[in-house]
């Protein structure tokens, strides 16, 4: 084809990655990944977001080394309680005379855990419901979408509260509750995406090869819905953390003395005005992490979402 020639050509490993004729599956995949990575890195905010998320992961892994104090055992109530940020206590101390910095550091583990768990529960449910409904259509679609609507019509926090109330408090149950309330939008997205895909020629082509419905859905439809879903899930991360915090705020999230950020903010709200650091520090952590995820999600959208990338 008579394409307009490019004036500069990549070289070295870049050339290998960008090779129009990869020699193996691996090279092909890496090449794709590299392309995505490049368009991703073009967005400085997105890179910042990624940095935050990576930092979160690192902090979670190395919490033991980073945190100077125990996250649960506090100091002397009479002398070390509610101290403002200082050189000894970077983020100050809380009402139980615990070092807030250490708690924030350890809290990253819980936050990460919550995020990962919600993503692992909610995404597949939404994906499956949405793709099956969209692909099969007819009454299956009607029934599944009605169920989705019911869940969507539920007041979210209420549903979560109810579930937590039913299952008993604790971070795992809070996570399940959040997951149960967050899949419906994913199902909707997946369905919409599926509807645009299901009549396309390449689906017709696999049908013509005699592929079974599950095979088509799992092998062909799902991968295409996945990208817009991943984007949406990353964008929702902030919401998830904040819902967990909201549950914590209502006393139904993590069990004390777990250093869950939401619960910490909830405790801190009693000291919001004078001992501002008690709520502000974990609040800041929530903010930074959800901002990070949001920026990352935004960046990912440009990379993964074929419609947004233009």
């Amino acid at each position, binding site marked *: 084809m008579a*394409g307009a020639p*490019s004036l500069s050509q990549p070289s070295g490993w870049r050339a290998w990655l960008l090779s129009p004729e990869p020699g193996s599956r691996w090279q092909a995949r890496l090449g794709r990944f590299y392309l995505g990575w490049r368009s991703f890195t073009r967005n400085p905010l997105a890179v910042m977001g990624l940095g935050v998320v990576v930092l979160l992961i690192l902090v979670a892994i190395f919490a033991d080394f980073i945190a100077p104090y125990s996250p649960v055992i506090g100091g002397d109530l009479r002398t070390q309680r509610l101290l403002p940020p200082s050189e000894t206590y970077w983020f100050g101390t809380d009402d139980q005379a615990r070092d807030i910095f250490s708690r924030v550091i350890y809290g990253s583990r819980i936050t990460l855990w919550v995020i990962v768990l919600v993503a692992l529960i909610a995404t597949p449910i939404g994906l499956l419901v949405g793709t099956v409904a969209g692909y099969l259509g007819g009454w299956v679609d009607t029934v599944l979408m009605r169920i989705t609507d019911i869940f969507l019509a539920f007041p979210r926090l209420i549903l979560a509260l109810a579930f937590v109330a039913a299952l008993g408090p604790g971070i795992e149950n809070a996570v399940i509750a959040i997951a149960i309330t967050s899949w419906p939008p994913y199902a909707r997205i997946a369905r919409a995406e599926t509807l645009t895909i299901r009549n396309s020629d390449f689906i017709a082509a696999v049908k013509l090869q005699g592929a079974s419905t599950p095979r088509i859905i799992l092998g062909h439809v799902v991968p295409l819905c996945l990208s817009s879903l991943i984007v949406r899930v990353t964008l929702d991360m902030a919401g998830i953390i904040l819902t967990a915090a909201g549950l914590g705020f209502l006393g139904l999230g993590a069990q004390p003395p777990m250093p869950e950020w939401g619960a910490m903010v909830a405790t801190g709200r009693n000291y919001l005005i004078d001992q501002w650091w008690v709520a502000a520090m974990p609040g800041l952590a929530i903010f930074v992490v959800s901002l990070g995820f949001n920026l990352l999600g935004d960046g990912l959208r440009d990379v993964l979402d074929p419609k947004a990338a233009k």
Partner: protein
Amino acid sequence: MTKPLLEVEDLRVRFHLRTGTVEAVRGVSFQLGRERLGIVGESGSGKSQTGRAILGLTPPPGEVLAKRLTFDGIDLLTASKRTLRTLRGGRISMVMQDPKYSLNPVMTIGEQIIEAYQAHVKASRAEAHDRALAMLEAVKMRDPGRVFALYPHEVSGGMGQRAMIAMMLVTEPDLLIADEPTSALDVTVSMEILRILDEFVSERGMGLIFISHDLKLVSSFCNRVLVMYAGRVVEELEAKHLREAKHPYTQGLMRCLPTLADDVHPLPTLNRDPSWAL
């Protein structure tokens, strides 16, 4: 032809991308009077970018350079946005390939034509309305009144394309750039569209740039043809002499088409010579 309507000299369109700079149009020069000029070439050869550069509609990362780009004595490169806007749609128009996508789906066809008219002519709504109807009639729409109130999705491709033409010609421009105006249409329909365009050129003395990848069509419809390859004009010739083209690319293009006239098996294919792109 005393003074050419459009003069293009060494037109270049560049896109600066992270991957490097892509030069989509590389030194295209031509002149156009009140005639039909065809631009042919394969996909990606820069036909559309040439057309868009003339209208100043090169998409954002693009950059347009030229030694000379004048329309009726107006330098299009240095013209203010305002001048460009009055030229666009007023004196230079463009018909695009696919009516399905180039008509605003949420406005009626009539509204869109009126809008185009009122953008350039101070006219009352009623006048504009009449004018739009007249225009729809001029493009041989059978029931202009009805079509006027229809939304783009409610008309067939052929009707949509005619509506598009009506919209672009309502201001009676001096120059029309038609970017593959018929490639989305049936053969029989596209003949009618061409006939309408043809009428405008011959009756109103409009200049026409007809962009297409269909050599056969261009040769039968236009006066002159530019053949583009990789952003360059490789050959410029009279349409009727297309069969005697000298450039191997043009020759190849002509030959590799199956025709009803002769039955060649296998079809000759085009062997691209890297030197063409230089």
